[in-house]
């Protein structure tokens, strides 16, 4: 019973953290309710589908179906986050400084809300499919509907609470820093996903190099602990990162930084001084 509570709690918290960041990043944007709802619904539907066809997915691509599916959806999520950050660096800074009205910016820039909806869907799909399969096992094992219902309800409540706390916490960030703060958090989120993808490729045998763990902080914070898992979702923390994971993490972070600079809105020219 307790085990089923903990596992649901754990997975829902991880999705809740991502939801909280997305909510904070889209504060005050019209239409975000629909985006969040659509992302959640698509993610849940995807989770059930993945759980239903887990056996068949695994058999694809010479037994690497699970890994290739996971890497594909992680790559999609990283791409969506990159698109959003690029958009934000063009339009968001001005918004943050209150130079333009939000409505105007959204009309002009067509903020890629769908991108964030897809990120929510991916987060829910990944954590959700584990929950669905676990609960299916509980049900098939005859442990009873009570444990399932309690686990599900408790997990969803806990995940919702985490999302809310994350969101409220990020709302306390002063407006002039909100652009930098959300961009940084989204970049770290994406870097963690890229490192995950690297680890999955290694597990599938597609990337058999740079696989020696570089260090271990397992004594300080284990991968299995709740804080360890939360940090894993937020910044990609792993107790024993290897070379390829670190490379994927650092390259994504650098890539996001360069992307933000490349797409940054041209600075308003100080009119007369630029005459040569």
């Amino acid at each position, binding site marked *: 019973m307790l*085990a089923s509570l903990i*596992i649901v709690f754990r997975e829902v918290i991880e999705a809740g953290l991502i939801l909280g960041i997305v909510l904070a990043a889209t504060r005050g944007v019209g239409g975000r309710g629909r985006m969040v709802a659509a992302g959640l619904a698509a993610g849940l539907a995807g989770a059930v589908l993945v759980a239903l066809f*887990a*056996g068949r997915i*695994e*058999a694809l691509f*010479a*037994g*690497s179906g*699970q*890994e290739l599916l996971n890497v594909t959806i992680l790559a999609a999520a990283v791409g969506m986050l990159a698109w959003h950050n690029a958009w934000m660096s063009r339009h968001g800074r001005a918004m943050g400084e209150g130079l333009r009205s939000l409505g105007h910016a959204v009309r002009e820039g067509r903020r890629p809300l769908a991108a964030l909806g897809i990120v929510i869907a991916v987060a829910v799909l990944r954590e959700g499919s*584990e929950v669905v*399969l*676990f609960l*299916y*096992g509980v049900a*098939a*094992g005859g442990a009873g509907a009570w444990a399932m219902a309690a686990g599900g309800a408790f997990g969803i409540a806990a995940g919702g609470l985490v999302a809310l706390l994350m969101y409220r916490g990020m709302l306390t960030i002063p407006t002039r820093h909100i652009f930098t703060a959300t961009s940084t958090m989204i970049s770290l989120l994406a870097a963690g996903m890229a490192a995950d993808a690297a*680890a999955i490729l*290694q*597990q*599938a*045998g*597609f*990337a*058999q*190099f740079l*696989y*020696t763990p570089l260090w271990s902080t*397992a004594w300080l914070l*284990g*991968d*299995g602990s709740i804080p360890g898992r939360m940090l894993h979702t937020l910044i990609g923390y792993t*107790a*024993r990162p*290897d070379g390829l994971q670190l490379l994927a993490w650092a*390259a994504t972070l*650098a*890539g996001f930084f*360069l*992307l933000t*600079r*490349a*797409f*940054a809105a*041209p*600075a308003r020219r100080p009119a007369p001084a*630029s005459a040569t």
Partner: protein
Amino acid sequence: MRILRIRKSSQHILVSAALLLAAALALRLGAGPAHAAAPVAVVIAGHRFTPPEVAVPAGVPLTLRVENHDPTPEEFESHEFPAEKLVPGGGAILLHIPPLKPGRYRFFGDYHPATAQGALVAR
């Protein structure tokens, strides 16, 4: 103008970095999965691992085959070597594990951690 030039240059850096990465990946991926010797097998039955201690050679890449004889799914996982993969009920999976130093490395079934406990013993 200066600002424009910085933006252009970072665009170039981005594009060339992406191309390099893609090329490197294509080269490595083209080689396909590099299999070590015959896979080491472990069976899940009654939410337990058999054998509970799996002897493996140290210092070489390993391929682990996990067979699930239970009708319910299990998640094979370890915090001591990189592994986290779903094993469908009645199904089997392959895992690629980097070379291990001699020692004992615990793994578990995340859906039944009370009973599903095992270890790789690298010698």
